[in-house]
């Protein structure tokens, strides 16, 4: 099976959900017109990134939100799956940085960002709660996994999704560009190239990485969205720094070929990993063999 993916490398407006929703609907219509089966937006695509005290103002309740309903409706009307980002408020009033996958008018999966960077230029942990579930999920286009930006810097996230059967990894990102010394290009862009390629190559999966562009209070988001095939080769790359809606392709046959040439997933030893992790876990948290879960 082959399907067409649109990388929606947009420039969200900080804190203006209605303008961002309008932009989403415009991009969805445009990409669907060009034959997209799946459209992937960046992290916090409905809200912008440096939300701080705007978090409660821009948050949606998944079941009741008119914004989410509008995107569900667009997925049905244009017959296209959509992954987008926003702030989700849970029933217990915790706020999450979430990625939502909708298809044919329904919410298929929600991923809550696992790792909230709270250091340097980042302060997510002050405003948001961290998710604690990472699961692959089935879609009409195959089994997928979603991660959000910093999640991808923890290789365990990708490992778990790959072991859980994800063939296509969507990474929604708001990655700031930095580093104009010592490199020919932005240092952060090179780091993302390494991470997305190695993830695809190590697990023979497609990595669909969508990063936003634009400035927020002087910080620049660098774009450079890309599809990396299961051999670790970028197949389409969006420009740096500019808005773009880029069409690419996922070809399941490539996954089969990669996994035939490199049967690394077949050879993966979950028992070994579990055993060793359990040993490390017991030592790290000073547990005794009689503790629950050991």
């Amino acid at each position: 099976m082959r399907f067409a993916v649109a990388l929606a490398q947009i420039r969200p407006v900080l804190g203006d959900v209605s303008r961002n929703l309008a932009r989403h609907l415009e991009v969805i219509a445009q990409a669907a017109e060009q034959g997209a089966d799946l459209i992937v937006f960046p992290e916090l695509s409905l809200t912008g990134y440096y939300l701080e005290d705007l978090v409660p103002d821009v948050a949606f309740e998944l079941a009741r939100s008119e914004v989410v309903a509008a995107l569900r409706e667009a997925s049905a009307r244009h017959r296209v799956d959509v992954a987008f980002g926003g702030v989700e408020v849970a029933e217990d009033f915790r706020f999450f940085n979430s990625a939502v996958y909708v298809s044919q008018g329904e919410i298929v999966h929600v991923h809550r960002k696992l790792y909230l960077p709270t250091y340097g230029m980042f302060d997510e942990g002050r405003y948001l709660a961290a998710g604690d579930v990472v699961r692959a999920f089935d879609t009409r286009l195959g089994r997928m996994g979603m991660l959000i930006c910093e999640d991808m810097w923890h290789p365990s996230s990708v490992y778990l999704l790959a072991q859980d059967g994800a063939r296509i990894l969507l990474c929604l990102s708001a990655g700031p560009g930095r580093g104009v010394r010592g490199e020919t290009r932005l240092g952060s862009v090179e780091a993302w190239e390494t991470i997305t390629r190695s993830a695809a190559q190590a697990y023979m999966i497609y990595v669909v990485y969508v990063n936003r562009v634009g400035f927020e209070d002087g910080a620049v988001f660098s774009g450079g969205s890309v599809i990396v095939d299961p051999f670790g080769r970028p197949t389409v790359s969006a420009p740096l720094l500019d808005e773009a809606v880029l069409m690419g392709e996922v070809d399941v046959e490539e996954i089969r070929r990669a996994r035939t040439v490199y049967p690394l997933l077949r050879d993966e030893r979950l028992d070994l990993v579990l055993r060793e992790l359990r040993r490390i876990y017991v030592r790290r948290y000073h547990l005794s063999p009689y503790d629950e879960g050991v």
Partner: protein
Amino acid sequence: MMKASDLGPGHAFDAFNPALAAELLVRFIREEVTKVGFERGVLGLSGGVDSAVVAHLTARALGPENTYAVLMPYRTSDPTSVSDAQAVAEQLGIRTLLVEITPMVEAYFERFPDADRIRRGNVMARMRMVILYDLSAALRALVIGTSNKTELLVGYGTIYGDMAAAMWPLGDLYKTEVRQLAEYLGVPERIRRKPPTADLWVGQSDEEELGITYDVLDAILVELVDRRLTVEALVRNGYDEALVRRVAEMVRRSHFKRRTPLCPKISPRSIGHDFRYKRDWGS
């Protein structure tokens, strides 16, 4: 004064990428000006390298027709400052205004004839701020500041004077990097090679006032600020301890200039404490 060459290898800025920096800064100015509803920028053009670079970047970002350079000499300013500024403006095709600050500054100091040169320098810098902000309203143009990372970090600037601006495009570039960017942008060599000066009185020199060359100062700041080395580590690497401590102290003592004024915390939600929004809120 120490020179960068005394420090041995590994301290040069040869890896700085001026083309990439220029692209990012042009985009920064364009986006941060236009998204808040402006099309124009106004800046003070002194004839020095910093404002020449900001004029280049602003002209690229907003177009020369939307870039207003204000030349604001004082009677003791070096006469070549105005001619050098005019040369930059002509090269770029940007709009210029000449506003002499001498009568305004003199009028003020008739009330305080004994004021020392620090006070006089501060008033000159703030008089220029008054003019730029007045023209900002008159022209509907945002004030584009010319402060660089080196002077911001050591506090070599007048708060609410030359530091007053809507944005500092050079605020993350050290002076030595600004010089490289100037060369890349085609700022005339004459301007790039001038000894840096606030030009508040005849013969004033940044490096003499600071007691250190920009080469050495920037090398120390990179180690302390960007690479987070300790003073002790710098001394082990061959830097003069007293000099490093003096630079670290300049950074600490000038921190108030880089922050908004202190506000008490006595209500449930207080500005500067727990009322947190970015400037770009909604834009």
